[in-house]
């Protein structure tokens, strides 16, 4: 490329979104382009802002539960779990063991469902449309299980402060067992379609690399961070619920490209199957709800509780003034913080790669904008 050629190039600014099929919602990215290469970028968010943190200040602790469903709406049960556990920590409530195991089963199924939506849409964005259909076929089964458990399929409102609303219905265990026995075979099917597919490899290998140091510095968490080789999973490092009794591995990537993040999520689904299998066997009989006062009125104080949601560290910081409504709720949404590292990942890549990279962070705009 001669000098004369360069003299005639000019940096242009282009908007990607807010209405773009690959942004999974309403996300706008302002791109500074040199030809087709991204020089600089700035994600612009907030199109889906509903003021959820403000809403929390005028709801009781129980009333806020269904609103948490609307944060990350493809993994509602995980949001519910983070919320109820934060309130339980605030009040010092001990949850019965049976309820804990049921919670683990539901949230791990939720993780599989979340990763299936992610895998399907990611493959669809890159051009492998078939995978989406397979993924949604299996997700449908999980949603059927949820429907059996609580009557809802998407916005579950699955748990209650102190335990669960209902015990599992008859036939639930068998159904989950049947599903997780068949499911690993389906994962192999997805992998057969993608893992060694030449087009898939070219679109994902060495694309959107982020080093472990940069990722930690930017606050990246969850599978996206583990793709860079950081072995950090809150289920293992700061176990909540009954995760310390369950055996599972933390899959990690090596260089932190799109392909590594894909591999981590695929492996996480296998690990979730392992966890559910153990939880089903270990689940004791007994109570499903602790003795909780009819009116939830936590003592004054503050608490930060976070769980390993399918997308990363989901935390709730609650300040209580001793009344029935929280004084302040701050949601540490993994998608919001993870999206921050997008600019770093797409720098120097082609516009077409942005689609693959956005997908690989796995964001849900409901959670980004709150």
């Amino acid at each position, binding site marked *: 490329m001669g000098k004369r050629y360069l003299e005639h190039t000019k940096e242009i600014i282009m908007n990607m979104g807010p209405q773009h099929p690959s942004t999974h919602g309403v996300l706008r990215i302002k791109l500074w382009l040199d030809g087709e290469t991204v020089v600089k970028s700035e994600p612009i968010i907030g199109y889906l*802002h509903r003021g959820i943190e403000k809403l929390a200040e005028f709801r009781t602790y129980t009333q806020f539960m269904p609103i948490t469903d609307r944060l990350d709406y493809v993994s509602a049960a995980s949001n519910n779990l983070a919320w109820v556990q934060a309130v339980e920590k605030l009040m010092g409530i001990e949850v019965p063991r049976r309820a804990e195991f049921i919670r683990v089963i539901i949230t791990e199924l939720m993780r599989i469902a979340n990763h299936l939506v992610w895998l399907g849409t990611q493959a669809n964005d890159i051009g492998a449309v078939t995978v989406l259909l397979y993924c949604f076929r299996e997700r449908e089964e999980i949603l059927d299980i949820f429907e059996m458990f609580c009557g809802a399929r998407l916005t579950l409102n699955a748990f209650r402060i102190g335990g669960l609303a209902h015990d599992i219905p008859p036939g639930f265990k068998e159904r989950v067992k049947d599903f997780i026995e068949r499911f690993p075979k389906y994962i192999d099917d997805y992998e057969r379609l993608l893992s060694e597919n030449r087009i898939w490899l070219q679109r994902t290998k060495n694309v959107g690399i982020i080093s472990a140091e*940069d990722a*930690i510095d930017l606050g990246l968490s969850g599978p996206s961070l583990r793709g860079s080789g950081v072995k950090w999973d809150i289920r293992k490092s700061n176990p909540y619920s009954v995760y310390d009794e369950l055996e599972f591995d933390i899959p990690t990537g090596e260089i932190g490209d799109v392909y590594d993040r894909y591999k981590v999520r695929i492996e996480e689904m296998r690990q979730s199957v392992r966890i559910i299998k153990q939880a089903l066997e270990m689940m004791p009989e007994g109570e499903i709800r602790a003795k909780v006062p009819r009116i939830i009125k936590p003592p004054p104080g503050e608490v930060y509780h976070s769980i390993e949601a399918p997308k990363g560290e989901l935390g709730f910081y609650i300040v209580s003034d001793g009344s029935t409504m929280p004084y302040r709720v701050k949601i540490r949404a993994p998608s919001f913080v993870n999206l921050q590292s997008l600019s770093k990942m797409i720098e120097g890549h082609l516009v077409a790669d942005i689609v693959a990279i956005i997908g690989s962070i796995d964001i849900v705009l409901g959670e980004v904008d709150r």
Partner: protein
Amino acid sequence: MNNEKEKIEIPENFEKIIHKISEFFSTAIIEKKFDRGELTLTIKPEFLIPVAEFLKQEPELKFDFLSDICAVHFPKEKKFEIVYNLYSITFHHRLRLKVKINEGESVTSLTRVWSGANWLEREVYDMSGVVFDGHPDLKRILLSEDWKGHPLRKDYPLSGEEE
């Protein structure tokens, strides 16, 4: 309630954190609180950067991960509490760092200690109107640029026309 009991016993690893910080910044700490298994340190705002840098770099503490920043408004006292939830990926421990400022005062930005503070501080500015000095690009993030007011202040009107 049962907080009183827990307050007395501080687990060893938290003791170590307190000890380490007090060693270097004896004058910076205003309040230490251990409640519900979480350690909260309130420090003077002018010590924010040195304490943050120390927490991040000290090999025995290594708070390399900034989880969250939150501002809590107390309209009666005309004060803001800026709350930093820190985490160490190496040692798996948590710490809550707090600074208290008056309404209208600004805080030093932590973007040069943790790059991840960028968006978190922008969100705090957007929602509570707290200004961060030295932030590279402090502007609204969730609300539109022409929005008036900061919704997560306690005195923000819930309904009705402006003014």
